[in-house]
């Protein structure tokens, strides 16, 4: 049995694995951004069916563990006849997860816009698409920035669960190095530190924007 010490090499292998964590987070965030916008729009729609579907989607994804969502996509791909691929399964599951959470966050932001804005836009003859695009969404997006950055932190942390279905990102790389070096204290300390370096600036940013925003809106 070969046990190698935890040295500078092992440290860099773990740090470099963060690129997969970042890539997975970026894909899920981009996909979740598109999905979340659709969910949010469906959730505030005038038609009943899209509203019901979006509400159900949000309920299910906010009421079940992310780990189970990952497992279901992972094994579900096999049932649908695709080869099992942890990378794709993780990207799909996290995208769906992000869509539900961003959809719920952005619904709140859209509903926070005073109804008079929408009525005025309708009175000026703007149809749904233009009303959303030029009147409602630009205002809602200002409110949305801080909680969205806050959710990004949650999403980055969530990508660690991809390690359980075998995708080699930061946490999984830590497990692999730990199996070779048997120094869990150093290994998982390093892994935690890398996540902290990724997440903390975003948390601070989210908090600062929140304070700035609440100052600009209270008179």
């Amino acid at each position, binding site marked *: 049995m070969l046990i190698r010490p935890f040295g500078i090499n092992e440290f860099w292998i773990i740090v470099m694995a963060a690129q997969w964590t970042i890539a997975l987070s970026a894909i899920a965030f981009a996909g979740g951004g598109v999905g979340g916008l659709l969910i949010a729009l469906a959730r505030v729609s005038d038609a009943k069916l899209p509203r019901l579907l979006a509400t159900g989607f949000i309920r299910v994804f906010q009421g*079940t563990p992310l780990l189970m969502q990952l497992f279901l996509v992972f094994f579900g791909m096999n049932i649908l006849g695709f080869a099992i691929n942890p990378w794709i399964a993780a990207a799909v599951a996290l995208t769906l997860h992000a869509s539900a959470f961003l959809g719920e966050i952005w619904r709140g932001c859209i509903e926070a816009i005073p109804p008079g804005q929408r009525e005025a836009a309708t009175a000026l003859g703007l149809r749904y698409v233009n009303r959303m695009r030029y009147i409602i969404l630009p205002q809602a997006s200002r409110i949305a920035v801080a909680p969205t950055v806050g959710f990004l932190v949650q999403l980055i942390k969530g990508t660690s669960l991809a390690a359980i279905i075998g995708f080699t990102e930061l946490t999984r790389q830590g497990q692999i190095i730990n199996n070779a070096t048997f120094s869990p204290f150093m290994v998982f300390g390093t892994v935690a530190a890398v996540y902290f370096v990724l997440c903390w600036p975003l948390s601070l940013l989210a908090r600062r924007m929140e304070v700035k925003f609440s100052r600009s809106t209270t008179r």
Partner: protein
Amino acid sequence: MYNFNFEPVLAGFDKLLLGAWVTVQLSCAAMLIGLIVSILCAAGKTSRVAPLRWVIDAYIEIIRNTPFLVQIFFIFFGLPALGIRLSPNSAALVALVVNFGAYGTEIIRAGIESIQKGQVEAGTALGLSKLQIFRYIIMKPALRTVYPALTSQFIYLMLTSSVVSAISADDLAAAGNDLQSATFASFEVYIVITAMYLIMSIGFSAIFSMIERAAFRYPLSR
């Protein structure tokens, strides 16, 4: 076309129920102990001793900016290096308490900040002791104000607790892993477990709103 086979899941359903019961126990215990940790930390953050405030701030920031999976690996695999060896179930409980404590502290602190200063001054004027003021004038209304935030944090804690299956604690997700590797009916097992988690989170939401209606009947002042 894939043939769904739920028979092995039904055959092992008693094990899943047992796992669900462990998940409920684990979450409730973590919530109660975590709430005590949160109240202590929130009280500590109002302390005049600066190093104490720094330690609490560091604790909150570290826990909130690292994944739960890494925290539990650190506690389960890393702490034995310091001579602290925990069984999977106790490591799971410790990790959940530590995790909930960090989020809970922020929630409780927000509640304490919502108490107006005049209330505390009125308490002092009435000759209440410091502990009495903290308990009756600060904590009681503060807890009521943050009750909705605390309950949704509890649901989140229960869902997060599925991650403790990664160190093979005895919770619902771990019971599912066992059943999955014994039957190979992977999708069927996990769809049933996911449904069980969904039922638990809907159930707990319902219980919490019942408690809210029963316990907080007197009007909320603004």
